[in-house]
């Protein structure tokens, strides 16, 4: 039992949701996206702002419609771990945390494996872009709090984008900004229900950029790509699920294109931070 928090009931569950018989859920059969205004290649509009956290060295807040997360960067600061050894390079530490109310089902306060996995992905995606050799004996800590999540892939991608903007905002020397982008492979069209049909299997799935939670429920596979747009280098690819090689390479291309668009947003947010500084003077 957790003695350090105000205790609640030992067991609580979300109520069972009963949909009226005439209620129609979105399915890929509709051959349109969950948000009908979006085309398969469209991302959600991004809102990105730096300097939200007053105590942090650098910070960023990102919003893709319902996906909302905040990122704070602390450092370079002394490594505070016990049993540390001398290191001529800086250490990058990432921690991503979901707020208990961020998902449809309430999350517990205990750090779960999913959060650990995400933290690892994040540090792998970002470390190639940071000039850690210029920061001996120091640590850079990146903390991310997901306030609301609408899709796992888009959450990871947004975290990568926000973290690299926050790093740049902290004045840490980097090779390039890292933009993150996600896509899901979804089988659309009516043939899916009349399964056992060989036509259905041969039909290539659609690539939906920046899929939301509803769409992820139907995905066959997904990809998250971290990419340095101006150096034209990929820092991290995470592909899961089943897809043909051609679909994967196609989706990587789509993601790289999208990352270039995201880069423009990141660029703008950082230039705005310069303007903010000027106004403050």
């Amino acid at each position, binding site marked *: 039992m957790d003695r350090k928090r105000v205790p609640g009931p030992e067991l609580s569950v979300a109520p069972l949701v009963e949909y009226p018989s005439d209620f129609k859920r979105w399915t890929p059969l509709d051959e349109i996206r969950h948000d009908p205004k979006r085309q398969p290649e469209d991302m959600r509009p991004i809102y990105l702002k730096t300097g939200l956290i007053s105590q942090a060295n650098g910070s960023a807040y990102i919003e893709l419609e319902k996906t909302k997360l905040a990122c704070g960067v602390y450092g370079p600061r002394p490594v505070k771990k016990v049993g540390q050894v001398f290191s001529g390079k800086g250490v990058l530490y990432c921690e991503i945390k979901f707020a208990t109310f961020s998902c449809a089902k309430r999350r517990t306060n205990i750090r779960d494996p999913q959060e650990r996995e995400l933290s690892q992905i994040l540090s792998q995606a970002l470390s190639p872009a940071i000039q850690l050799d210029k920061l001996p004996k120091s640590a850079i800590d990146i903390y991310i709090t997901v306030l609301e999540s609408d899709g796992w892939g888009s959450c990871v991608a947004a975290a990568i984008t926000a973290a690299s903007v926050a790093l740049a905002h902290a004045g840490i020397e980097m090779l390039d900004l890292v933009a993150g982008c996600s896509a899901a492979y979804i089988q659309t069209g009516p043939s899916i229900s009349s399964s056992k049909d060989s036509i259905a299997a041969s039909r290539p799935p659609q690539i939906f950029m920046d899929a939301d939670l509803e769409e992820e429920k139907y995905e066959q596979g997904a990809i998250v790509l971290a990419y340095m747009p101006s150096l034209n280098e990929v820092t991290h690819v995470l592909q899961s699920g089943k897809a043909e090689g051609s679909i994967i390479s196609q989706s990587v291309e789509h993601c790289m294109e999208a990352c270039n668009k995201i880069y423009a947003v990141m660029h703008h947010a950082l230039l705005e931070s310069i*303007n903010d*500084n000027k106004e403050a003077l």
Partner: protein
Amino acid sequence: MALVADAVVPGQRLGHVQEFNAGVGTYSRQDFIYASVVGLKKITIENNELPTMTVERENTQSAMPDIDAIVTCKVVRVNPRFAAVNIMVVDGKPCTDDFQGIIRVQDVRATEKDKVKIYNSFRPGDIVRAQVISLGDARSYYLSTAANELGVIFGTSVAGGSLVPISWQEMQCTKTKVIELRKCAKPM
């Protein structure tokens, strides 16, 4: 909103290595020079040399000790071998998180090193100006006060009054006029 034309972000290509030298805030990679921080780009031209491309940081990185940097620190612990300090300011810039450093007995002053006693040089609570001489071990930076302008700059006497330097190794309490021993810094 009028954006400054010279504003750059990390990764932005600034020029070719044959045109410029890579200065502070930039790096060169495969024939090109790129920005590594957010800031305003600046080109400085020196005689008969390639112009240097630098980027002036807009969001200053949190201060970090480097070799040869002058730091201001607070003594937290002393023992016969060294004085342990918290580095609070590096080159005039306050650190957000304090770094740890030590001033070893042989680094307190330049002459008569064998006669130095830590207790007669520093006391916990003193504010010391020192120079970083090495990155040190896993925990602490190694600092030195072996120069005239380095040493204790603020101190509190046993009686609680503030100390005023009267010689290079003595300070006097403003309240009780008691003289205490310190390695003083020469006022600048």
